[in-house]
């Protein structure tokens, strides 16, 4: 699947200049995304995954600022664009879905008003045509009787339905890329499955590319094509989702996978990662994970580069695991 990338991010740096110092929330993130591809961007709180998403949307607010790197969307450089240019891009070429759908929805306006407005902000179309497109978008995300739902207010929808509406709005102008920030985290299991089902169908049918930001490896395993694991502002491992989850190279990825309960570990202690993530204000020199890493040694005081482990995988570690090591330590003592 060597399609041309629709989004290329190179050495992206977003820092927050706070009273207590400079927090390097995103510090040299690079990845690319092909058409129709779903990239899972995985990390824990403070890993920089959400700030990466906001940087892609030009939505970083002071004291934060994109201080370096490049974001190319279909060949067009986005870093350094004016707020005006961003406004015309957002929603049209790149759209975002948030964990809380009310970030997208205005509680006092009817859904049709909001959707028609979103279309006509970018295109000169008649109101009827815009309404027809809004209706089609609602139907496409699996909302039953879209005509009735168009004239409803956001509070008349359940949480899952609201998230569907938010996705429909993101789809309205047929963007190249959708950035989804934990959109199913707040939903129940059966509702989450419904949303994942719709999203999966959409990407397969329309060639839409998606960045799925989440802390949930299990969701990524079921949904994504490729996965990038973030830790303390950097990508520490990336590759096709199956290869990464079955044979993680980075000790952090291994630790994360070991932390998730699964069939073959029942009743046993989970392989936990000791300690907790370092403060972004005071990152240690060298590998940020070294303090929690069982493999760390003197070499880890130098920052490792993201090196390719195969033609499709990359890892940022001086002492990576072998891909054929099983992800779980099966039955050791």
């Amino acid at each position, binding site marked *: 699947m060597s399609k041309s990338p629709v989004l290329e991010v190179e050495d992206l740096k977003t820092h927050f200049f706070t009273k207590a110092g400079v927090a390097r929330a995103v510090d040299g993130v690079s990845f690319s995304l092909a058409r129709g591809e779903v990239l899972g961007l995985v990390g*824990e709180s403070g890993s920089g995954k959400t700030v990466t998403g906001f940087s892609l949307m030009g939505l970083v607010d002071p004291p934060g600022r994109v201080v370096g790197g490049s974001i190319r969307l279909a060949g067009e450089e986005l870093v350094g664009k004016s707020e005006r240019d961003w406004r015309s891009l957002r929603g049209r070429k790149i759209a975002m879905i948030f964990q809380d759908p009310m970030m997208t929805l205005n509680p006092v306006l009817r859904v049709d008003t909001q959707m028609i407005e979103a279309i006509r902000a970018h295109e000169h179309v008649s109101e009827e045509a815009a309404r027809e497109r809004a209706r089609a978008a609602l139907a496409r995300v699996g909302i039953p009787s879209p005509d009735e739902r168009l004239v409803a207010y956001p509070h008349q929808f359940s949480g899952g339905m609201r998230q569907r509406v938010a996705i429909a709005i993101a789809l309205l102008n047929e963007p190249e890329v959708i950035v989804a920030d934990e959109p199913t985290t707040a939903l*129940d*299991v*059966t509702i989450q499955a419904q949303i*994942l089902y719709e999203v999966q169908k959409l990407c397969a049918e329309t060639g839409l590319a998606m960045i799925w930001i989440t802390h949930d490896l299990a969701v990524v395993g079921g949904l994504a094509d490729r996965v990038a694991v973030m830790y303390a502002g950097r990508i520490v491992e990336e590759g096709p989702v*199956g290869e990464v989850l079955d044979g993680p190279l980075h000790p952090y990825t291994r630790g994360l996978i070991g932390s998730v309960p699964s*069939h073959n570990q029942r009743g046993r202690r989970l392989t*936990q990662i000791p300690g*907790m993530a370092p403060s972004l204000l005071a990152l240690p020199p060298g590998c940020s994970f070294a303090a929690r890493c069982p493999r760390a040694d003197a070499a880890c005081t130098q920052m490792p580069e993201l090196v390719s482990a195969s033609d499709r995988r990359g890892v940022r570690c001086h002492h990576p695991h072998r891909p054929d090591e099983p992800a779980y330590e099966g039955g050791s003592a």
Partner: protein
Amino acid sequence: MSKQPLLRLEGVSKRFAKRLDTAEKIVNLLGGDRREEVVHAVDRVSMEIADGEVVGLVGESGCGKSTLGRVVAGVHAASDGKVYWRGKDVSTLSGAERRDALLKIQMIFQDPMSSLNPRMRVRDIVGEAPRVHGLISAGEVDDYVDKMLLRVGLDPDFRMRYPHQFSGGQRQRIGIARALAVEPDFLVCDESIAALDVSIQAQVLNLFMDLREDLGLTYLFISHDLGVVEHLSDRVVIMYLGRVVEVAPTEELFAGPNHPYAQALLDEVPRIDTRKRVFQPIKGEIPSPINPPKGCHFHPRCPHAFARCREEAPALREIAPGRLSACHLNDG
């Protein structure tokens, strides 16, 4: 079960009523039709939990699992039904007996932020209850708190700090230390790891397992996360809209759930060992507990529903030794 269960619930219900306010009463006088809204958060639940057992309580939002946990822990009183602790009806106990029964069941909460009093130091958070109840004297507080902090894997030097100075995982440990300080036999864990990061979740889960081994604790582990429940529990109870729909030993449940809702739930849990799967969701939304469907609460979403399901609520009955299910399909 020959032994007396540690905890037994008999037809426990919990209703929350939203009373009419003055404005609504006036609306009614003028011919309006405002009614009191009664939520049957928990609807006639019976179960037994044996000494040393870990029971997972699973369900989606609005199923009443948290409310049931609070009834068990004594935070809410049951509207109907009885709670037996070591064979004694808790509501008939008084004085010291009642207090002991209350203290023996402790709760670990979901939100590591709001479950600790922000104006109190760790020493007071952990040491207050044992001192008030005379488990320790004032002079012993520091040593006792140190012991509790060590037990949950925290540095005793943190004793004089305030909750905001800790990470989420550490706060959850403080909450566990607070519960352990009154020497409980039974912990109700209400989504106790849901708010934590994945790697921290594993740390806290391991702590729960260590405590079970070291202190012989019994758990009611409430969670929406089936993976976690499967990992930890001996038995699983599944609730839907206030009612128990299935009870089964963990391995049997995950090998073959009986109730259609349990089947759907198990199918849809994202698992780390599945790749690029095609999601096949059950249709429909979770109905509001204010106005649940008649008959079997699950019938509007159930692929097997037939006429009887719409009229008659199925009873929870034994379908195999140790397995209960509430579904008309089991009647043949």
